[in-house]
């Protein structure tokens, strides 16, 4: 009997974990399809803690079901007075000690991985120019409701689409410029808050194989309530092989201010220079201080995957967005800063923006 019970427990335990492993959710978003060292560590901890917890639940459930069926008051028992039991030291010691042991099993990896995942020491090794020696560092600055990604050692700034190399640790400096946000790429690793005071640091690793499965794009989210459009503060992560990434960085570094050539884009440039350029930069090497960088850098806008983080990257949606941003991202800071645009102006501006590209393909 005991043995059978044991087997049954194990079986359902594995069934449960298999259910989780089967991967509900989308691989570009779900924490259950870990795509990298950090997410994998966290996933393993989830499985370990789930296994222990399912064990506890099973013990309780078995006792529970037995008790409520075995000891229900039956006909004829109306006047039966059960034996009044004070307690049992032996039992009480058992159910104090066993949980403690189970928790110790959980404590050891918890503590060790807490420290392992906080190891950002490679960020501190700088060469004489102040550049990080052997690690890729990205400064993340969260804003209402967009993300800026700065590669400080390369002098490159981009926004909304985070571009990273696969299969190496990427280190992040995190901060917020207005209210608190939280930087989360569920499939790749846990989140870290971007505070308004002080910077946080952590690292992530993007697994190349998993990245291929999701066409080199993961979804990122803001995880801390930050205002009406908190739900819409998404960003995308473009993963590239180390070689492609180096190429991208050098494209970005060498990108010049774009010059519109054909007629429509030329008109768009005029509109842009009149209405947008006060906030939006169009070169990746924006040397203004961060307080002046009040809107996403648009230098590679034409190569992005989404507009404003959530809308399709199409001319139609771009026009919709430019016409009434409030409708698509309530509470954003762009609404009302540039007056109404005529439909010709919209067409021109759209043509211009869609032409903003840096990659030499």
């Amino acid at each position: 009997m005991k043995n059978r019970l044991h087997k049954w427990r194990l079986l359902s335990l594995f069934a449960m974990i298999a259910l989780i492993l089967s991967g509900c959710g989308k691989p570009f978003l779900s924490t259950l399809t870990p795509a990298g060292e950090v997410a994998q560590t966290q996933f393993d901890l989830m499985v370990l803690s789930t296994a222990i917890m399912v064990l506890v639940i099973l013990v309780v459930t078995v006792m529970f079901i037995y008790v409520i069926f075995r000891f229900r008051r039956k006909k004829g028992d109306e006047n039966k007075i059960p034996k009044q039991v004070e307690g049992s030291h032996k039992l009480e010691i058992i159910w104090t000690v066993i949980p403690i042991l189970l928790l110790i099993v959980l404590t050891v990896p918890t503590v060790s991985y807490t420290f392992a995942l906080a190891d950002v020491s490679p960020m501190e090794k700088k060469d004489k120019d102040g550049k990080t020696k052997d690690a890729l560092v990205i400064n993340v600055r969260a804003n209402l409701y967009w993300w800026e990604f700065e590669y400080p050692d390369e002098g490159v700034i981009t926004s909304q689409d985070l571009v990273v190399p696969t299969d190496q640790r990427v280190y992040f400096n995190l901060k917020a410029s207005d209210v608190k946000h939280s930087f989360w790429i569920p499939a790749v690793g846990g989140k870290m808050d971007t505070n308004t005071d002080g910077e946080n640091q952590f690292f992530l690793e993007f697994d190349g194989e998993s990245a291929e499965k999701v066409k080199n794009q993961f979804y990122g989210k803001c995880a801390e309530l930050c205002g009406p459009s908190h739900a819409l503060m998404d960003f995308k992560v473009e993963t590239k092989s180390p070689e492609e990434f180096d190429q991208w960085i050098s494209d970005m570094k060498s990108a010049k201010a774009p010059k519109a050539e054909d007629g429509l884009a030329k008109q768009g440039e005029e509109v842009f220079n009149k209405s947008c350029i006060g906030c939006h930069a169009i070169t990746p090497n924006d040397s203004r201080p961060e307080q002046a960088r009040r809107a996403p850098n648009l230098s590679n806008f034409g190569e992005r995957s989404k507009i404003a983080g959530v809308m399709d990257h199409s001319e139609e949606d771009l026009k919709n967005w430019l016409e009434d941003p409030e409708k698509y991202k309530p509470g954003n800071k762009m609404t009302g800063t540039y007056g109404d645009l005529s439909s010709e102006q919209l067409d021109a501006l759209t043509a211009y923006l869609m032409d903003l590209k840096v990659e030499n393909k």
Partner: protein
Amino acid sequence: MSTYAQKKGIGATIWDYLTTVDHKKIAILYLIAGGLFFVVGGLEAMFIRIQLAVPNNDFVSAGLFNEIITMHGTTMIFLAAMPLLFGFMNAVMPLQIGARDVAFPFLNSLGFWLFFFGGVFLNLSWFLGGAPDAGWTSYASLSLASPGHGVDFYVLGLQISGAGTLIGGINFLVTIINMRAPGMTYMRMPLFTWSTFVASALILFAFPPLTVGLFLMLFDRMFGANFFDAAAGGNTIIWEHLFWIFGHPEVYILILPAFGIFSEIFATFSRKRLFGYSSMVFATVLIGFLGFMVWAHHMFTVGLGPIANAIFAVATMAIAVPTGIKIFNWLMTMWGGSIRFTTPMLYAVAFIPSFVAGGVTGIMNAVAPADYQFHDSYFVVAHFHYVIVGGVVLGLLAGAHFYWPKMFGTMLNEFLGKITFWLFLIGFHLTFFIQHFLGLMGMPRRVFTFMEGQGLETGNLVSSIGAFFMAAAIIILLINVVITSVKNEKVGNDPWGDGRTLEWAIPSPPPFYNFKQLPLVRGLDPYWLEKMEGKKGMMPAEPIGDIHMPNNSFIPFVLSMGMFIAAFGAMYQVDDKPWAIPVLILGLLIVFGSMFIRSIKDDHGFHIHKEDLLDEDDKEVKA
């Protein structure tokens, strides 16, 4: 029945409740006000689930959604769950220890009215320019950036109702320490009294940090201070610490009394004394103690560093041990018992697996590196609803059915009660179980919408359907209350037949002085002990004599209203409204004036004379 309970007009009844200092009537006030806020918070929950039922829904706007989630959380914690528990504490705890009233009847009334006016103030925000929208945690950078007066309503409303709660906590502590009947030693106190005691101690030490946090926020928003303004040297993390130093014990303030209610129910309907009573007491105290050591587990992703995270992770896991002790003790209480599945017992039984599920996800959250994934996702939403709904709300519903006859002298309908139970239980699991997976699948919490194609559609729809089951359950409960009140079939002292503690030894509802003669307590479960020896009631510990009772007072109501008025003045002085400062001063004058009158007017109370008590005996004999 009693010479004191004459038939009164409706106006006189209202006046009686406005001025009452009787713990049983204050309990009813808490039950009504808390129930009202519970319905409001429930409606807000329904709006949330309707909005999230399908992707890209536009049932409510983004800004309004944030107001709804903020008010849902704030209302449910501060204005529904806690007051409802206070209701049961007030109704039952003094009876359980054999006291004629609480230690400070006047303060008891003051505590209620402060809570009530604070709650009303907070909810008036809906009609005066918009509710708070920074979440129930109101993290500093967002709450300072929040336009309008929403967050001001939050700060001032919670400050007022928090003062009421603190007063209530001190009152219960003194009552339990000083007012126990002869023979009622600490280790004979029923578990509900014990959990009231520990929860009150938690209130005493947990609310002041919230008070300070709210003051800092108030000064920042209304008087130009710079506590949370990074540009002027401020630091927003201070708010997070203060809030959670309060916020985590708050969870135990809610759950411990629910544990207490369940302990009474398990023992009563298993017809067995509580298994491992002393370890239950020990576990309750230990949970309360550890509750203060773990607040930073709400802040694992804030960037406190690996040392702090590791310490708080381990400390948090430690809480599982005393909680586990409790679960097994409850199971062993039923073991070998004679279990009767009344409505309260159904809730108690269902509580065990529901709460265990919430508890184990709590341990999972304590695993700091994994929590980087869980934090601020729907996994956490699922976790705390499993704890608060699966623990506290089931406890409240169980308590409502269990103590209804003691409070109102009539039984809630068992058939309707069981329908409520099943609907609620199914709805609860349907709503929240799937949310664990939504969180793991990458859904952050507090999002007003989600997009198609991210794998979140089915889960959210299922969750929303579940919510309607819960709503239906509550509607049936309300119908049950109405039917029961209209029928009003009176019941005797011990309507469940298996009562064990002192409250079941006196009439339902008890006379306003509770005990004609204070009972002599001879052990744990005193009434059960007497019943087992074939006696009908408690042995008196004193001869019949004069009973000293406190006078009713209108001052608590007026004082609380003064705070309410002053809060409007404080809030609108920001806008340079000319009337704001005079209103602030007027409100404070009412507050201090009430205090002044209270201190210079001697209030010695009155006596019920021995002769009247004896007369009553004669009448009962005749009748």
